[in-house]
């Protein structure tokens, strides 16, 4: 715990200041997680949160972390978004002797105290198995990636799907050449192009729900809602609704920003109070279908 900082009033009474360094808040998943962290802190009481946004600029993330350290926070939570690593930021935190908890994104390099996030490859496999089961006679399955190419989370999800489907007889995989940029508008245009080149698609997997929601519209517009089924990732509210409504959106793998955010904050507090904690914690990602979708709907959730 911290010493005599202006803002860091840490102590044995369990009051802490925790900094949150977001790489970007420009996506609902990320702003949802940021809110979940704040909400959890409020629930716990006596914890002050200082949240920063690097607006997608890696150097700014490093500066923000330095800013946080100069404000003498007790711990830092990093939501790295599409960033693959942030050695400078991690080094700064380490040399300040503060713990750092990564949420969602696990960095490839550098020392961190603890990570909480999903097993993306597992989510992909789970989706793959579901699709294989829904397509016993095989068929064309399209994959829509978020991009850019250096995005390891998306890669893991796609690899998961591929690892299951590639072997299956009768199934052909079609990877869209361009990226959907993790948004519904991107999902829509990429799906439109896919449908033009592959009229006989049977299913589409998107690396997140937002893209699937756009893809679903493109499929509906093309009058193929009965032909193409959809599988996504995240458990975004609109996706849950589509699944529950019995549309051709059949499945998603839960990657709950609310849960991961809350767990991240809990983990930081645990560390600060001296507990020994697991280094890497995989948050389970149950498969969500029409049967169980209702139980994951959370009107108070931020994502």
């Amino acid at each position, binding site marked *: 715990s911290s010493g005599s900082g202006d803002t860091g009033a840490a102590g044995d009474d369990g009051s802490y200041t925790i900094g949150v360094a977001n790489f970007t808040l420009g*996506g609902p998943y990320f702003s949802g997680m940021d809110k979940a962290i704040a909400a959890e802190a409020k629930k716990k009481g006596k914890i002050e949160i200082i949240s920063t946004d690097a607006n997608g600029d890696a150097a700014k993330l490093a500066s923000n972390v330095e800013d946080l350290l100069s404000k003498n926070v007790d711990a830092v939570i990093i939501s790295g978004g599409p960033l693959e690593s942030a050695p400078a930021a991690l080094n700064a935190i380490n040399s300040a002797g503060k713990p750092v908890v990564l949420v969602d994104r696990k960095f490839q390099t550098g020392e961190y105290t603890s990570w909480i996030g999903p097993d993306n490859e597992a989510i992909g496999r789970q989706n793959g198995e579901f699709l294989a089961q829904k397509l016993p006679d095989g068929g064309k399955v399209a994959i829509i990636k978020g991009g850019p190419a250096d995005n390891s989370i998306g890669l893991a999800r796609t690899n998961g799907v591929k690892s299951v489907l590639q072997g299956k007889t009768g199934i052909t995989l079609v990877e869209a050449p361009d990226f959907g940029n993790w948004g519904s508008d991107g999902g829509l245009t990429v799906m*439109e192009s896919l449908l*033009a080149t592959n009229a006989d698609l049977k299913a589409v997997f998107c690396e997140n729900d937002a893209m699937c*929601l756009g893809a679903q519209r493109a499929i509906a517009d093309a009058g193929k809602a009965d032909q193409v089924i959809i599988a996504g990732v995240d458990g975004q509210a609109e996706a849950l609704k589509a699944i529950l409504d019995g549309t051709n959106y059949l499945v998603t793998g839960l990657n709950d920003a609310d849960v991961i955010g809350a767990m991240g904050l809990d983990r930081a507090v645990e560390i600060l109070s001296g507990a020994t904690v697991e280094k890497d914690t995989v948050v389970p990602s149950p498969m969500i279908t029409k049967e169980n979708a209702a139980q994951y709907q959370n009107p108070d959730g931020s994502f």
Partner: protein
Amino acid sequence: MTGQLTEPALTPTEPRRLPRLVLAGRDITVATAFVALIALLVVVAALTAETFLTPTNLTNLLKQMVTTGLLSFGMLVVILTGGIDLSVGSIVAFSGILTAGLVSGLPIPVAMAVGVVSGIGFGLINGALIARFELAPFVVTLAALTTIRGLAFVYSEVPIAPEDPGFFTLGSATLGPVPVSTLVMLAVFAVGGVFLTRTPPGRSIVAIGGNAETVRLAGINVRRHVVLAYTISGACAGLAGVVLASRVGIAQPSVGVAFELDAIAACVIGGASLAGGRGSVRATFGGVLVLVLINNLLNLYGVQSFWQQVLKGLIIIAVILVQRTNRVRS
């Protein structure tokens, strides 16, 4: 001195250097070359990509040109005055999410109108700052890009997906094989063409880009016309935002990043000068076609995303090179 000249001197016939083919004061060689270029692109596409001429793909093309098309027309108007509007992408996001947010409480057409009006409002503010205080358009609209994007997120951090299926009509309905949204865009170009060539405010906007001081001396209110230009751009962006949200079915505060670049590119590919005063509605539409065709073709060929980027840039250079070479030669 020459003044005392008694005999009427021969006046040489002029103008002397003109392109070889002239029709109604335009050198049609450049325009023809441009049409030929687009035709060539289409023919190459049709011959090399089997799926290019399928109805789905053609409908796709028609849909995919809507956003860039709408933004490009508005951008052209601003570029003609010698300005630029970098804020259009953010306006797209704001008007879309605003409309989607209002749909729950208001009739859909009203909500959509409000979305467009928000674009008009932002355009007005841009124009007023630029015209009234003579600030550089680039920085004003760059600041607007930032502020309006922020406002879109302030309005709603999360995407909004209206339930009412009527919300999707504008974006998904078709008239025969032609999407309604495409017709909306074509109507904007048609009306816009008449506006710029045959109405006094339209001509004033063109003239301002050529020489604002002269226009001022002619007793025309330059400021008011500059404001008008940015308002038109804002309106187009607002409309594009509404159409896009309706098409995607979900409005996101994060859409539209870098949309302004494609719109500007379309204008310049169509021969518009960023110094103002030169640009044509038809050629800008051609520029939109070129961009949409490039994207479509690269996708049909299945070119990998980052190679797509590499090629897209190179093709744009090639297109303006061809245009340029032709212009110099004629």
